[in-house]
């Protein structure tokens, strides 16, 4: 047993390939035989991943889900920002340039709406729950944009660490909800073309949420959504500590 653990730990990335392969295989079977293909295999795989992340957090008390468990350390590398972005860039190979260009303007509009709507809503929820200072409202509102915009904004305007934690939690909950709800709401949102995926990428924000949500809906839509969503965090980090903070400050003093 000890030797096996050793072999898995010292080859953690390789073990991650095998392990994720197994999850994807099981998910495919569950999709076909349990849901008769109605729920996409990728959606099930992502849910299993989230479940394992919960278990990992419970087991280790760490912040990186399953990858905090020693033998699953390779998951952290395989699913980390480096590999995620590498694989997303690779999907650009399948982008139909004409389609992407057609949706350029509406993509930009979606980006701005995707920053404003969550921010205003998040800040309002914060206010109604008793976080009435401009700094707290802005930090929590920014967290509702993405879990990177939240702490970057908070750090820039001097938020306290518990507000930062709350802001990050808001962003993480949002990313997870986007992953889970996108396939369910795909038909309602009209996610069936490159244009619609670009609108979605701008509005839903969070690259992890968008990429997983679209992957679970239709893999071919991923590059279009990701192409827009990648500008989301930058725009949020730009607007959060500046225009949005000043606007909140002007409103609540």
């Amino acid at each position, binding site marked *: 047993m000890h030797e096996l653990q050793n072999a898995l730990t010292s080859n953690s990335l390789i073990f991650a390939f095998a392990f*994720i*392969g197994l999850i*994807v295989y099981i998910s495919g079977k569950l999709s*076909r035989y349990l849901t008769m293909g109605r729920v996409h*295999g*990728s959606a099930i*795989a992502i849910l*299993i*991943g989230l479940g394992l*992340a919960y278990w*990992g*957090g*419970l087991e280790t008390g760490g*912040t*990186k*889900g*399953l990858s905090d468990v020693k033998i*699953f350390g390779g998951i952290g590398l395989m699913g980390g920002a480096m590999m*995620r*972005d*590498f*694989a997303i*860039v*690779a*999907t650009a190979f*399948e982008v139909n340039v004409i389609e992407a260009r057609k949706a350029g303007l509406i993509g930009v509009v*979606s980006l701005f*709406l995707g920053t404003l*709507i*969550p921010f205003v*809503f*998040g800040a309002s929820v914060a206010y109604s*729950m008793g976080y009435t200072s401009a700094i707290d409202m802005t930090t*929590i509102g920014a967290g509702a944009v993405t879990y990177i915009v939240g702490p*970057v904004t908070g750090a820039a305007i001097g938020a306290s660490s518990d507000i930062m934690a*709350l802001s990050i*939690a*808001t962003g*993480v*909950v*949002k990313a997870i909800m986007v992953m889970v709800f996108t396939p369910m709401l795909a038909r*309602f*949102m*009209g*996610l069936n*073309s490159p*244009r619609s995926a670009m609108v*979605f990428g701008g*509005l*839903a*924000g969070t690259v992890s949420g968008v990429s997983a949500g679209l*992957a679970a809906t239709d*893999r*071919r839509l991923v*590059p279009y959504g*990701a192409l827009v969503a*990648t500008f989301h*965090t*930058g725009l949020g*980090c730009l607007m959060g500590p500046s225009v949005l903070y000043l606007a909140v400050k002007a409103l609540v003093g």
Partner: protein
Amino acid sequence: MIIYGTALLAACHLLGAYIGDLLGIAIGVKANVGGVGIAMILLISVRHWMRQHGLMTQMTEDGVAFWSLMYIPVVVAMAAQQNVMAALRGGPVAVIAALGSVLLCAGTVALINRLGPQDPDESWKESTAKESHA
């Protein structure tokens, strides 16, 4: 050589990340601005140029296609390392703020997509990296 494709992809990724960082510094933001998007645009342009000049071989294409097909497994691994515990501990503020944002945004996506032009052109469905949709 298959490594050419992967190296090309890596070069676009790195250049995009670099430009994204520079862009962030230029507009005074502590984040990478659109690095992935810039890398994607670079890759699309390079591919177009290489095809026109007959430099793109099937092997080179495969070196990129492999990674685009690895996308879903990578996303599953990404899901497995989310801080789900913290998300659940965040309490009502986090949950309400997140749920409301997601639903409002979903509604807006639905609205925009219904108002927009319905495009009957299905050519984008022709994927270069083939994989069966089980």
